[in-house]
């Protein structure tokens, strides 16, 4: 993985020292809150409902054991013993005290981490496929591209005050596990007819109050043109993006108002100039970065222990069914560690659990860990012979829940339990659904079902692209939840369609229960997943199940 050079180290340390002084000046009264707020946000420090919250970037979701142990130490020393992994591959600490934050940032800098650009109208943490560098179906590892973008965008003076925040995601496989089409810029590594590797670039995607699936602006961009092209998009957006209305400031609105063709033309005009300005340093840097993401030295060993455990242990079989994915080395597996024990807070890990994951990564996983936008942890390189030992250790730590991709593997934003922007809670709804799913006992029969919950229109819980999406709103001081169906965050991206009137908080779990029952009744066979059934039969039968009284009234 990427290691900081002297420039990175000095930059991060200087920012911590600078912020330490800013905190001191806020505490001694030299800075007003109005002056201090933009400074703290530039360093990832928010003020939420009950406390400050520090959002720490995990670039493209990649960590090693040393970094994970440091997150555990921070959670114990300066927080309440846990961290919350988010849909943007960040980790959030919910309870830091203001005066401690510079010390936390120093502790992060000790392990080459920071909280810079995790807030504000700048290019945010660049996200990537969480199976990067390991997936069997991968064309190329997206992390060198993401790292190049991280270096280019960090403290980029031209893009420090964009009209609005800017999110970039990179995927390296035909299967889009990075939700690229829901990002301001989505980058998919592709091969052209000549077998050359390049990028399909989409622009203007995003969820939030105005959800839009991104449009392809270039179907094949040569690898060496990445930075001048992305910079051209940012320059056009910076120049013509709206600054008069916060709700119309994202690039999706800019693209929508100007039209993709006019926007593309402006980008291409800019690109002709920009391409000459980049004189090859970017490409040389990319090659340097790429060497740091070399595949680990794979072990050659028999996999008999894996097969024996599979034959002997039904719990292990269940775990393998859902939590393992094909690795590009057939003797290896990608192991997903679910942070979604039934009834738990999605994405939360205790300091002890973080240490268990760090230990397993170090002992069995070539010291690599990933965080997924689905709020799980991943050990991307585990030899199959070691999977039984990993599973046993995860069971001890209550981390072996075999539910990845199933109904209880729910994405949920922090919602009104923590977030200052939220209009309703997300976590208790996720807990209720997961608990109900466990009671039903048919989660494995139900199969692939992505439920995503947001506690406000900003859609941090990605509800628009959930097979079942749930959006919490405030209705006259009470929580109320809208349901959408048919959303899809993959390469066949689609926005969910709203079912009808919202549900009171107590009625959401029974509503999801009825949706699952309806799917089971309607599916053509056990292999037809929820989304496929929905696409085949449409909204009506699900609507009838959700609103039985309305169906009776209309004879439907």
């Amino acid at each position, binding site marked *: 993985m990427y290691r900081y050079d002297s420039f990175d180290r000095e930059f991060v340390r200087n920012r911590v020292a600078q912020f330490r002084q800013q905190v001191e000046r806020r505490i001694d009264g030299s800075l007003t809150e109005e002056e201090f707020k933009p400074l703290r946000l530039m360093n990832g420090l928010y003020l939420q409902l009950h406390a400050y919250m520090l959002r720490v970037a995990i670039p493209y979701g990649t960590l090693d054991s040393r970094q994970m142990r440091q997150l555990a130490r921070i959670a114990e020393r300066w927080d309440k013993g846990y961290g919350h992994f988010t849909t943007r591959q960040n980790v959030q600490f919910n309870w830091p005290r*203001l005066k401690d934050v510079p010390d936390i940032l120093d502790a992060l800098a000790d392990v080459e981490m920071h909280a810079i650009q995790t807030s504000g109208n700048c290019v945010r943490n660049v996200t990537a496929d969480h199976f990067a560098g390991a997936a069997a179906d991968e064309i190329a590892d997206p992390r060198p591209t993401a790292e190049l973008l991280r270096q280019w965008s960090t403290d980029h003076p031209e893009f420090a005050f964009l009209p609005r925040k800017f999110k970039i995601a990179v995927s390296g496989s035909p299967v889009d596990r990075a939700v690229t089409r829901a990002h301001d810029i989505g980058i998919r590594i592709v091969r052209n007819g000549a077998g050359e590797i390049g990028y399909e670039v989409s622009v203007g995607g995003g969820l939030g109050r105005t959800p839009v699936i991104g449009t392809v602006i270039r179907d094949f961009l040569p690898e060496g043109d990445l930075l001048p092209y992305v910079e051209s998009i940012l320059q056009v957006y910076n120049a013509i993006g709206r600054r008069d209305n916060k709700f119309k400031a994202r690039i999706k609105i800019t693209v929508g108002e100007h039209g993709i063709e006019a926007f593309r033309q402006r980008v291409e005009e800019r690109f002709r100039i920009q391409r000459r300005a980049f004189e090859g340093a970017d490409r040389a840097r990319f090659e340097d970065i790429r060497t740091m993401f070399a595949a680990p030295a794979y072990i050659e060993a028999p996999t008999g222990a894996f097969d024996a455990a599979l034959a002997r242990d039904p719990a292990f079989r269940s775990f393998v069914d859902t939590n393992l994915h094909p690795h590009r080395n057939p003797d290896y597996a990608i192991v997903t560690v679910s942070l979604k024990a039934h009834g738990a807070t999605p994405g939360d890990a205790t300091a002890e659990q973080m240490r268990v994951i760090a230990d397993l990564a170090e002992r069995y996983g070539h010291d690599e860990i990933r965080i997924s936008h689905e709020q799980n942890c991943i050990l991307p390189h585990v030899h199959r012979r070691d999977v039984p030992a990993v599973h046993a250790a995860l069971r001890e730590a209550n981390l072996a829940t075999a539910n990845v991709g199933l109904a209880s593997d729910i994405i949920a934003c922090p919602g009104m339990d923590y977030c200052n922007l939220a209009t309703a809670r997300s*976590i208790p709804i996720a807990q209720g659904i997961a608990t109900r799913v466990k009671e039903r006992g048919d989660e494995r029969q139900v199969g692939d079902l992505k439920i995503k919950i947001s506690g406000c229109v900003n859609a941090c819980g990605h509800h628009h692209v959930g097979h079942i999406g749930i959006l919490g709103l405030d209705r006259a001081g009470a929580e109320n939840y809208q349901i959408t169906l048919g959303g899809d965050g993959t390469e066949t991206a689609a926005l969910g369609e709203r079912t009808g009137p919202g549900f009171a908080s107590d009625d959401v779990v029974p509503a999801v229960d009825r949706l699952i029952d309806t799917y089971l009744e309607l599916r053509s066979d056990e292999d037809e997943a929820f989304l496929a059934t929905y696409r085949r039969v449409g909204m009506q039968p699900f609507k009838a199940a959700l609103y039985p009284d309305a169906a009776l009234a209309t004879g439907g």
Partner: protein
Amino acid sequence: MARAFRPCVLTANDLFDGDVVYLAPDGAWTRRPGGARLFEDEAEANRSLAAAEAQEDVIVGPYLAAAAPGGRQGPEPVHVREVLRAAGPSNYCHGKQAGS
């Protein structure tokens, strides 16, 4: 039409740890929701809010939040957001509720 005034408390977050605080009848800031002063007069509430806005050496983001008189336990929050701020997150017992 202007919204009718409702009884309220004056609340903010503590500058140093972000904890939810309320203006008490003695003019100090308390972390106990029930210890808040209940404003039943709009002009008085607005005067106190203006005074609180000048106290950013100890608090951040003061505002008036609707509240009910409650019983012996003091004022009670009305809106679900304020219920959560008064109690702490509902997923763990680790906010204000852990100390009560």
